[in-house]
């Protein structure tokens, strides 16, 4: 297993290099980061020239990539155009986004498994049709529209009902928050509630359908018929025999989808005005900030690669018939 992991990690190095180089070319070629500076009146040419040299804009693009890659290997992400250290910025933003994405994924997995299993056990009943229809509905809803609906019907109505500001619609935390630990957590949760709910609904929609399909698949297998024939209680058959095997596909699907959830958080963050990875990406694109954008790209790509690896390892662990060595 260790050999497999090492081999896979080595194989992903060329992918990381290719992706970063490709996106570097695209960003660097997408415009002039100094356009704002040039547009300003009365900026001496010497200042612009100095800035160009500082940002290595006078060098060929491959050299610029090499400079960036050298820094990256040493753990140095460089500075943003505004002069901020990218690594500090990245760390702040990553915490904010992961807080939302990880919580949403955990909740979504639990709900999706439950919904999928109920749907499969009660196949072709009203329950099954309702769950399936809701799944399709959320699958067809743009997350920004759903999130805005949640703001409208979730937050504002609940707050009015309770008469206090319990659920927040804007930002990841109240700025300059003071108070004890308990107070801070309450504030975090109040801000997390809506974005998490939006992400959960979208994820559950897709995953519950996988869970339903794999549960149905397992339920029609011979060993379930055998377990029933042995006279085990239906509950025991479902949970010990069917569910355990039906969980194998969903684990890999969730691990593979984590990257998409992370990317999708860009939109959720915009709806709720969070200062996370998403706004970092949009800022980087708008400012043509190569360092900032590649930091985002590297973190996201590496997380996706790691989760793909986790998916394969989980698969082998859960299904002993699979061997990688």
């Amino acid at each position, binding site marked *: 297993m260790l050999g497999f992991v090492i081999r896979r990690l080595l194989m992903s190095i060329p992918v990381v290099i290719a992706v970063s180089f490709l996106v570097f070319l695209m960003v660097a070629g*997408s415009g002039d980061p100094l356009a704002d500076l040039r547009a300003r009146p009365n900026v001496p040419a010497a200042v612009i020239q100095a800035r160009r040299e500082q940002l290595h804009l006078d060098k060929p693009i491959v050299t610029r990539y090499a400079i960036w890659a050298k820094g990256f290997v040493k753990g140095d992400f460089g500075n943003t155009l505004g002069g901020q250290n990218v690594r500090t910025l990245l760390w702040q933003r990553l915490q904010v986004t992961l807080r939302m994405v990880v919580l949403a994924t955990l909740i979504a997995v639990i709900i999706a498994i439950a919904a999928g299993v109920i749907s499969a056990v009660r196949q*072709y009943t009203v329950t099954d049709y309702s769950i399936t229809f809701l799944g*399709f509905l959320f699958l067809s*809803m*743009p997350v*920004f*529209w759903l999130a*805005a609906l949640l703001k409208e019907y979730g937050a504002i109505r609940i707050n009015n009902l309770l008469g206090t500001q319990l659920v927040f619609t804007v930002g990841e935390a109240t700025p300059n928050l003071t108070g004890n630990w308990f107070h801070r957590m309450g504030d975090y949760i109040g801000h997390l509630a809506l974005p998490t709910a939006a992400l959960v609904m979208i994820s559950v929609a897709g995953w519950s359908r996988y869970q339903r399909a794999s549960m149905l698949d397992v339920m029609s297998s011979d060993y379930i018929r055998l377990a029933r024939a042995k006279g085990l209680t239906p509950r025991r058959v479902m949970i010990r025999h069917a569910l355990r095997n039906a969980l194998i596909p969903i684990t890999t699907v969730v691990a593979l989808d984590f990257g998409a959830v992370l*990317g999708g958080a860009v939109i959720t963050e915009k709806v709720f005005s969070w200062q996370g990875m998403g706004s970092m990406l949009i800022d980087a694109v708008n400012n043509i900030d190569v360092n900032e954008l590649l930091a985002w790209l590297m973190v996201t790509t590496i997380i996706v690669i790691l989760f793909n690896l986790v998916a394969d390892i989980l698969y082998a662990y859960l299904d002993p018939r699979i061997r990688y060595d």
Partner: protein
Amino acid sequence: MTEVRREPAAATAAGEHQPAGMQPGTPEREFTVEARSQLRMVVRRFLQHRLAVASLIVLVLVIVASLIGGRIWHYGFEQVGPDLSRPPSWKHPFGTDGIGHDTLAQVLRGAQKSVQIALLVAFVSTGFGTVVGALAGYYGGKIDTALMRLTDLVLSIPAIAFLAVLAARVRHGSGNWLFIALALSALAWTYIARTVRATFLSLREKEFVEAARALGAKDRRIIFRHLLPNAVGPIIVAATIAVAVTILYETSLSYLGLGIHPPDTSLGLLISQNESAATTRPWLFYFPGLFIVIIALTVNFVGDGLRDAFDPTQTRVRA
């Protein structure tokens, strides 16, 4: 004659792959029952799926309305009238916005852009993905490795970053829906390529391919006459899913300000512009969103019905 004769009995065996090249409705002398062609069986099974049929009707209506509605409706999407922020009425069924645009005209225009992009993406990505998947699946070996490495590479680029960077390039270009469609296609083909490859891998080992080869059929003939027609089911289903995914992607891009730009409009852009009006002027916010949901939902239902029609082993619907 290089075609393998189809066993009439196999025509009723669900999910069985058959070599194509037979004329539909070829009389089978030994049997009194009329043989149904693959296509007719698929259509028959699809028509039994009531939700899918209803969805298809709604979808066609919405698509037709979005493609030609903007030309018939007596307000232009850029036209500004004297009625400001009016709720829905006979004159303006979807109301008007703060500067006097007719919301129905804007929603129709937005839907037109979204539908155009989604259809183009479905065509381009299905075409390209099918070619890549067919070559990789049929020839295997080095060609397969090279093409699949390329597919994996495209799959590892975070889509949102790729699209955002590309979109930023054409910030000031007008009529950029074509560009957005091509950018989305550049990513969407991977999924179809993988589906087609998997289908071809399993099909090429089948006896009818061997028989065709034994009869002297060339690679091109085997791919186009024997393999591709049998892979049509998964391809069409994948293309349908591509439409639904593209609609959501395109609206999301426009919402982020990276897709269609004013003065043109799109459903995502309308929602982003009117987000703050959800409470005070709900018609500005709800109608564009409803259009997205209706299009994506009906496409998904149609796709589901098609999947059942092409692969009846998964369901209890019988034909």
